[in-house]
């Protein structure tokens, strides 16, 4: 059975190997470049002792100008699980059903339950292994950016830690389940892409920020020069509040302080009105808790899809 799984899917596995190798090569080359520049420009020193050099703002800005686009480009790796779900997951059962070969393989001496188990184990182990290697490499690659932006905001969170493996497992299970239920590989591929985005994006936008109630801190910039929300925290909004904590609209605040020249004057103006800036954020120490919750959600979805697939294969296909 293991031999059969290998023989049937060696093409896909070679493809994954190829994609992984190419990505690894790109990441290693660019990552080395980023790490060197990070040292040479003095970004590392600035991060260690922000007060030591008055040019730190400029230095960090320069570093970001040079490599910020790479950080954004790496965001496309979020689609990699969907790609694997489409290429490996969707055809896994669907291709058998399209060619009626399930009637050949299920009437050998191996029960279909075992047939499915070995196949699932085989592709899950291979794809999760690839995902783990890539995630580890990406963590090294992102390390310089992580010191500047942290890893809690979505462009970091989605690519590091344990969630990438959960996304990979979910995309695979979705592809396999879609292929099993739809019995056709191409429609299953479309459903896999659509389904993956339809789950990932709403959770990212509307669910993840509220795994725990966000914290709010009221900041008076004239008292405290640096925002109390650090770069490692995940801040999602800021707005003006009066002394009683009631929210002011932005135009209200800006019209009251119209005519000020500098940021400092604006802050002073806010201060004279007894107005504060309310910052809503998730603190950095919740990072692993949030990773755990998000992983649990996607693992639960994965298990549900796999159970559905197993049930369907056992009872609904002949």
């Amino acid at each position, binding site marked *: 059975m293991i031999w059969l799984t290998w023989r049937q899917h060696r093409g896909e596995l070679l493809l994954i190997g190829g994609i992984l190798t190419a990505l690894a090569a790109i990441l290693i080359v660019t990552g080395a470049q980023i790490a060197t520049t990070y040292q040479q420009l003095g970004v590392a020193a600035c991060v260690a002792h922000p007060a030591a050099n008055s040019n730190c703002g400029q230095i960090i800005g320069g570093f970001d100008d040079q490599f910020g686009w790479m950080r954004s480009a790496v965001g496309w790796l979020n689609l990699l699980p969907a790609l694997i779900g489409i290429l490996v997951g969707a055809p896994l059962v669907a291709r058998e059903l399209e060619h*009626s070969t399930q009637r*050949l393989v299920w*009437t*050998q001496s191996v*029960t279909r339950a075992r047939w499915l188990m070995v196949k699932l184990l085989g592709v899950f182990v291979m794809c999760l292994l690839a995902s783990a290697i890539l995630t580890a490499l990406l963590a090294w690659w992102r390390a310089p950016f992580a010191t500047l932006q942290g890893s809690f905001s979505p462009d970091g969170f989605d690519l590091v830690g344990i969630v990438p493996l959960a996304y990979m497992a979910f995309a695979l299970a979705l592809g396999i389940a879609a292929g099993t239920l739809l019995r056709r590989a191409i429609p299953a591929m479309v459903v896999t892409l659509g389904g993956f985005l339809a789950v990932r994006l709403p959770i990212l936008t509307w669910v993840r920020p509220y795994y725990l109630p966000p914290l709010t801190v009221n900041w008076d910039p004239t008292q405290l020069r640096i925002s109390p929300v650090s770069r490692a925290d995940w801040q999602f909004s800021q707005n003006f509040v009066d002394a009683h904590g009631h929210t002011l609209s932005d135009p209200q605040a800006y019209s009251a302080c119209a005519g000020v020249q500098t940021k400092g004057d604006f802050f002073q103006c806010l201060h004279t009105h007894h107005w504060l800036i309310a910052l809503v954020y998730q603190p950095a120490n919740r990072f692993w808790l949030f990773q755990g919750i998000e992983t649990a959600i996607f693992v639960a979805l994965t298990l549900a899809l796999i159970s559905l697939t197993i049930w369907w294969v056992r009872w609904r296909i*002949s």
Partner: protein
Amino acid sequence: MTLTPTSLPATVGHADTAAVPAIATRELGKRYGRSWALRDCTLTLPAGRVAALVGPNGAGKTTLLHLLVGLLTPSAGEALVFGQNPATQAKSVLPRIGFVAQDHPLYKGFTVADMLMMGRRLNPHWDDAIASARLRKLAIPLDRRVGKLSGGQQAQVSLALALAKRPDLLILDEPVASLDPLARRDFLRTLSSAVEEQGVTVLLSSHIIADLEQVCDYLIILAESQERLSGAIPAIQGAHRLITGPRGDAATLAGIAAHATVIEEHQTLRQTTLLARLHDEMQPPNLPMPWQITEAPLEEIVLAYLGQPLPAESPSADEEMSAPTTYTTTTEDIR
């Protein structure tokens, strides 16, 4: 419902395993939504037979075969293969069955050698020599991709795979339907010789009756899910006669009815042709001139039973499903 062998009909009960029928179904049914693909099917195939399962398209042949190999689970009744339930005891039933599905599916991207490797890896009783000897004899190259073989060769590879499993029961679903006449003949020859060598029980479905006589020694006629007739082919042929005589000879017809059951009656303007089943082979009806009695070709017998209306059915709950189509056996058509 207990699925132990003791719930089988009378034949079982001995320690003598030869008495366990290769196939026994009891009121077997498969329903999809509200329509029954197979219903109330009770039949037995003794071990050691090479049986043809004959019936029109849509009679439920494929459904029946899929139930027997465990690809489907019954909605009603039970199917037993060598006394075991293929749906619930797949682990012990599957190694004993060789199955060639309709259109003989194979992995088209595999080489023939890959297909044999699959058989070796997936079957405990696999015998490589059987498969490779058979393929060598047919000059099918092992390093050729399956997709590049002709339809006939693919059918032969499927058969070789099923035989190398060394099954006790070989089930073939319309194995020759998609083959040209030459490939069909070759396939059936291979099957015959394999059956002789391996002594395997065979059930093969077909709607082409002429081909089956050279291979099969047993016949099961299935129409609208029901077993219409089953038995050894020589016995069936021995019991049936084709009787022709002038039309409107009521006295002779009454005489025939005393010795035989008329399965089908066909009338032209001047002639009456009957296909009848003798009550006793030793006592055919005495017929006056110009009546003639001859052996009936197997195909005629099969067609007669397929055209026969269902026996008066016991009324069942949902009448609209089971209501048999009404046939008129006496056709007044002019040919």
